[in-house]
């Protein structure tokens, strides 16, 4: 059931994710994170490194910040500004970066 929902969501967002003008959508969204988490999610002090983290883990953490399930100082406020589709794109970008 859970897998079915994931696939349905993936299909729903697919037309946006692959359109030509959105080729860099993940990169562009993820660039915002770099001022705290380091360029491409690498090399930052005091903040969680994001580069190379599994996509599912990134999505889980981000959505838990958003729901309030995971306590935070700032991320519960930042994460509320992003849609599921945008979280997927950001997670995809960071998961593809070298640690």
């Amino acid at each position, binding site marked *: 059931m859970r897998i079915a929902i994931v696939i349905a969501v993936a299909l729903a967002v697919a037309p946006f994710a692959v359109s*030509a*003008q959105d080729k*860099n*959508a993940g*990169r*562009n*969204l993820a*660039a*915002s*994170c*770099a*001022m*705290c*988490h*380091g*360029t491409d999610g690498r*090399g*930052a*002090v*005091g*903040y969680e490194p994001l580069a190379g983290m599994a996509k599912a883990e990134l999505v889980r953490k981000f959505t838990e910040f958003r729901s309030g399930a995971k306590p935070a*100082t*700032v991320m519960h*406020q*930042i*994460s*509320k*500004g*992003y849609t599921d589709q*945008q979280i997927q794109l950001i997670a995809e970008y960071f998961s593809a970066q070298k640690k």
Partner: protein
Amino acid sequence: MKRNIDRRDFLKLAGAAAALGAAGCATMTTKARVVVIGGGFGGATAAKYIRMWDPAIEVVMVERANIFTSCPISNLVLGGSKTMEQIRHGYDGLRKYGVQLVFDEATAVDAAKRVVKLERGGDLTYDRLIVAPGIDFMFNEIAGYETAMGSGRVVHAWKAGAQTIALRKQLEAMKDGGVFLLSVPLAPYRCPPGPYERACQVASYFKKAKPRSKVLILDANPDVTSKGPLFKKAWAELYKGMVEFRGNAKAIGVDPRTSTVKLEVEDVKGDVLNVVPPQRAGDIALKAGLITANNRWCGVDWRTMESTAVKGVHVLGDATLSAPLMPKSGSMANQHAKISAAAVVAMINGQAPNPEPKIANTCYSFVSDDEAIHVASVHTWDNKDKTLKTVPGSGGVSPARNVLEGGYAWAWAVNIWQDTLA
């Protein structure tokens, strides 16, 4: 968009500065040249990210200072818990991305010929120009300011550097029982919470070194502009009886002989006069015809950061006519830079720029040596109103000052310096 630098161009470039040196020679064939004026949080980030995202684009950054001095954390230098060395960073990190550095003053822009003129001679031609000039001051709004500043009796210290050092020295020299007078201009100005963080840091120093002294904030705004309840709580609890806030207290003059700041209805005496004048986009934006609003700020298309006045020129950071609820901050400049970098790379490659950019801001303020508070926001493209707007339900401030965020605030500074410069 592929083009060769012709001999005339090359001689101009070579003549512009020896600093271009070998890098200039190595890129005789290039897709396009982007010139970036200003090496602050906006300009340096844009230069780096353009090279990261398309190394075939030549990037020349023009900056008057050969070292970066950070405004964020400079209030802690005034308070004595950090040093100038900790807020100064070299530009060499940008060279590894292939950014060509020219340490000179950009004196004019000819947008028709797409040329930037430099003070020490030589012109730089560009395909796209990024102007990230920060702010300059409207000294004439405060009678007597420039003379008083010239004699060192009044400082702003609202650009980190020589005046940060001068203000710290004045605070050290002030007698115990003296008054530090901080005058805040009407919003919008650079770093909305900055004055109130400064009040905390100076009070923190007084508490340790000169406990009978006072911080008096004369604010042209009716109330504390940013994180008001959190700052007021810090003043009441950490610096009891030391910090006084007066709203609707706009400075209209300074008199160094009587050591006073003139308000509309009274003169107020202080021992150290830290008067922050009203601000506008930096001088080069004015000269380049980029200022579109109230003779102060530069209008931009937030999807690309391209000027609404001059095609082919992008404007970043504090110089922009801010979108609704968007602060003039180093964080925002760093984020503007990434919008512009993505747009410039796309446009040079004949692609459509990102139709709906989204950026996030976090501004930390230290209320003591180790406790901080924040304000965060997420800004997204609104196609109806054609601007960036905050996402409903997102963003917010700290529930209370805390040491955990003090750690994050310092790490934020280290990380944004890295993201901007290295």
